[in-house]
C-alpha cells in the first residue's frame, strides 16, 4: 500500500514537472495522452465494473467535441460553460440511448451501442450546414477559463492547456476511483459477475447500468470537448466505431477494472502509434503483432498482471 502511494506520488510529480523538461511536441503527445486516458478510464467503468462492453463509447467523446465546437464557434462562451454544456448533452444522450441499449445483453448490447453511435456519426456526416459534414468543424477557439470572481485564466498556451487536461484527467480519475470503491461500485461489480443474483437480491439492475453509462458518457464528453478545444478541430471520425474500438484496445491493453490500466494503455497506444508510424509505413503490422504479444503475455492487461505478481 505504501509503495503504491509512493508510486502515485512519483507519477504525479512527473506529470506536474513535464512542461519544464519536455519540448512542445512530446508535451503535446502527453497532453493528448491525458485526454485519452480520461476517455479510457470512463470506458473502464463500463467494461471493468459493470461488464458492459460498449462499441459506441466514441459517441459521447465526439458529441462532447461537437457541442464545445458549436458553443464556442457560434455562442462565444468561455471554457467552463462550454464544457458543462458538452457534459450535460452527452450525459443526456448516454442516459437515453443507454436505457434502450441495456435491454440487450452481451453481443446484443454491443451491437445496440454500435448502432446508436453510427446514427450520431451519420448525423455529423450529413448535416453539413451545422457540422461541416465530412470536412468537420475547424477553427474552434481555445476559450479562456473564466473563474467568476477569481478572474479569467488564459489557456491559449500549450503548457496552460496541458494543466487543464491534466486537471480534468486527474479529477475524472479520482471521481471514478471513489465511485469504484463505493457501494455503487460493488453493486456494479456484482452485476458483472452475476446479474441474475443481483436482480434476485432486489437491486434495480437496469437503473444501475444506466447510471454507469451516464457517468461514463459525461466523462468521455469532457475528454472529447477538451480534445476539440486543444486541436481546434472536430470531425465525424471522432464519433466513428473505429474510435470506439481504439479506446477499447487501450482499456484491454492496460487492464480492465483497474483505472490505472487504461491510463497506461492510452500511453502505450498513443506513444507506439506515434513513434512506430514515423519509422515505417507498415506500422499497423508491428502494432498488431505487439498487441497480440501483449494479449499472450499480459492476458489481464499490463497493470493487471503487474498487480497480480505483487500480490
Amino acid at each position, binding site marked *: 500500500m505504501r509503495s503504491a502511494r509512493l508510486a502515485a506520488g512519483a507519477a504525479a510529480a512527473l506529470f506536474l514537472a513535464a512542461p519544464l*523538461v*519536455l*519540448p*512542445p*511536441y*512530446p508535451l*503535446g*503527445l502527453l497532453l*493528448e495522452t491525458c485526454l485519452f486516458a480520461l476517455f479510457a478510464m470512463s470506458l473502464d467503468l463500463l467494461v471493468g465494473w459493470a461488464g458492459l462492453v460498449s462499441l459506441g463509447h466514441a459517441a459521447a467523446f465526439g458529441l462532447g467535441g461537437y457541442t464545445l465546437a458549436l458553443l464556442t464557434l457560434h455562442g462565444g462562451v468561455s471554457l467552463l460553460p462550454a464544457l458543462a454544456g458538452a457534459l450535460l448533452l452527452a450525459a443526456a444522450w448516454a442516459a437515453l440511448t443507454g436505457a434502450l441499449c441495456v435491454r440487450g445483453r452481451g453481443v446484443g448490447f454491443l451491437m445496440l451501442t454500435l448502432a446508436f453511435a453510427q446514427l450520431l456519426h451519420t448525423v455529423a*456526416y450529413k448535416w*453539413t450546414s451545422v457540422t*461541416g*459534414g*465530412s*470536412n*468537420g468543424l*475547424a*477553427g474552434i477557439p481555445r476559450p479562456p477559463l473564466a473563474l467568476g470572481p477569481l478572474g479569467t485564466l488564459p489557456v491559449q498556451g500549450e503548457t496552460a492547456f496541458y494543466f487543464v487536461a491534466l486537471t480534468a484527467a486527474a479529477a475524472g480519475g479520482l471521481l471514478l476511483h471513489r465511485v469504484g470503491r463505493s457501494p455503487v461500485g460493488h453493486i456494479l461489480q456484482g452485476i458483472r459477475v452475476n446479474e441474475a443474483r443481483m436482480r434476485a437480491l432486489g437491486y434495480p439492475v437496469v437503473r444501475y447500468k444506466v447510471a454507469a453509462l451516464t457517468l461514463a458518457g459525461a466523462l468521455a464528453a469532457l475528454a472529447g470537448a477538451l480534445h476539440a478545444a486543444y*486541436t*481546434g*478541430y472536430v*470531425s465525424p*471520425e*471522432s464519433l466513428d466505431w473505429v474510435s470506439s474500438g481504439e479506446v477499447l484496445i487501450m482499456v484491454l491493453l492496460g487492464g480492465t477494472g483497474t483505472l490505472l490500466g487504461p491510463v497506461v494503455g492510452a500511453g502505450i497506444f498513443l506513444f507506439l502509434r*506515434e513513434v512506430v*508510424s*514515423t519509422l515505417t*509505413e*507498415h*506500422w*499497423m503490422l508491428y502494432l498488431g503483432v505487439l498487441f497480440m504479444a501483449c494479449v499472450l503475455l499480459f492476458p489481464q492487461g499490463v497493470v493487471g498482471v503487474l498487480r497480480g505478481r505483487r500480490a
Partner: protein
Amino acid sequence: MAGMSRRQVLRTGVAAGVSAAAGLAFPALLRAQGKPLKIGLLLPYSKVYAVLGESITNGMRVVFEAEGNRVAGRPVELLREDDEVSPPVGLRKLRKFLTSDQVDFVVGPVSSAVAAAIRDPIHQAKVILLNANAGDNALTRERCSPYIFRTSFSNWQTSYGLGAWAKQHIGGTAYLTGSDYAAGYQIVGAFREAFVAAGGTVVGESYVKLGSTDYAAIMAKIGAVGPALSFSFFAGSDAVHFVKQFAEFGLKGKVRLTGAGFLVSDDVLESQGDAAVGAVSTLHYTRTLQNPQNLEFRKRYQALTGKPPDVYAVQGYDTARVILEALRRTGGDTTDPERLSGVIRGIQFESPRGRFRFDPATHNAINDMYVMEVRRGDEGLANYVVSVVKELKDPGHCPNITA
C-alpha cells in the same frame, strides 16, 4: 535535451560552436546555405489514398534527384509522415513537423478533411504549406491564407470547364451523380452551374455513399429518364464500379458518359477497360499530353519508378519545382515567411501539365483544363485531348491575401 545520448550532445555542442564561429566570419546568407532544407511530406502512405501519396512523393523526387538533392546549396531532406487520411493524425504529425523537425515547407495533404484541420495551425505558425492535392474550394476561398498555396486544383476547376462543352457538343439534358461527401457536391455543383448557364437542363441528381459497389438503383433511374449525358464524380474503386456497371446496364451508347477527370483517369482506366471507351472528362493533366516537358517528365518518372506518371505525380513534380524556384530566388533563405510567400506568388514555369502559375489573389493554381475522350490510340487505352479550356481560374475570393 531529454533522450539525447552523450555523443549526440557532444556533436550538437561542436556543431553549435562551429556555426557560431562561422557566424562571425561569414555573412548571414552564407550561413543559411548548407543547412538542410527540410520538407515535411504530410501525405497518406497507407489505406485508401496510399497510391496518391506515393505518386506525389515520386513526382517530387524526380525534381530533386535531377538537382543532385541540393537546392541553392542546401541538401534536401524529405521527411515522410503518414497522415492516414485522418484529421487528428494529420494534426499530430503536423505538430511534429512544426515543433520537433522544424521543417521549412509542408507538402500535402491529399484529403480535404485533413487540409481543413491543419489550416489554422499552418496559418498561425506562418509556415508555407504547398497543398499538392486537397481540392476543397474553401481552402483558397474563405479559408485561404497567405502561407498556403495550392499546386493541384480546386474542386470547382475539375468540372466547370466541361459544362459548356458538354451542352454544345453532346446535348441539353444531363443526369448528375456523385460521391456523397463534400468534394462530390462541389464538383457536381460546378458542372451544374456551367451546364445550366449554357442553357442545359438537369433532369435528375443522385449521390452515393463513398465506397459503394452496387450502382444498380442509379443506373435504373438514368435509364428511365434517358438524358443526353450523365455527369459523375467518382474516384478510385468507386469509379471502376460505376463505369463498368454503366456499360453492363446497357446505358453506354444511349447516354454519353462524362465526368470530372478522376472518373476515367489513368489510375482506374486499366481496370475499366472497354467500358470506359468514349467517356468524356476534364482534368489538368493526362499522360498523353505532347508538350516537351511532359515527354521528358514521363521518361524520368518511368526511369525512377518503373511506372508511367499520373496526375498526382505531376502535382508532386510541380510542387517540388515551386520549392526549387523559390529557393533559387531567395538564395536558399527560408527564414522570412512573408518574403517567401511573395516570391512563390510570382513563380511561373513550363510544367508537364502546360504553363504553371498561381492566381495571386487566391494562391490557387491556374490550370489549362483538358477536355478528353477515352480511346484506344497510339498510347493504348488512354485519355486523348479533344479541346482545351485555357487558363481556368477559380472564381473564389480570398479575404486574407492582398495581391
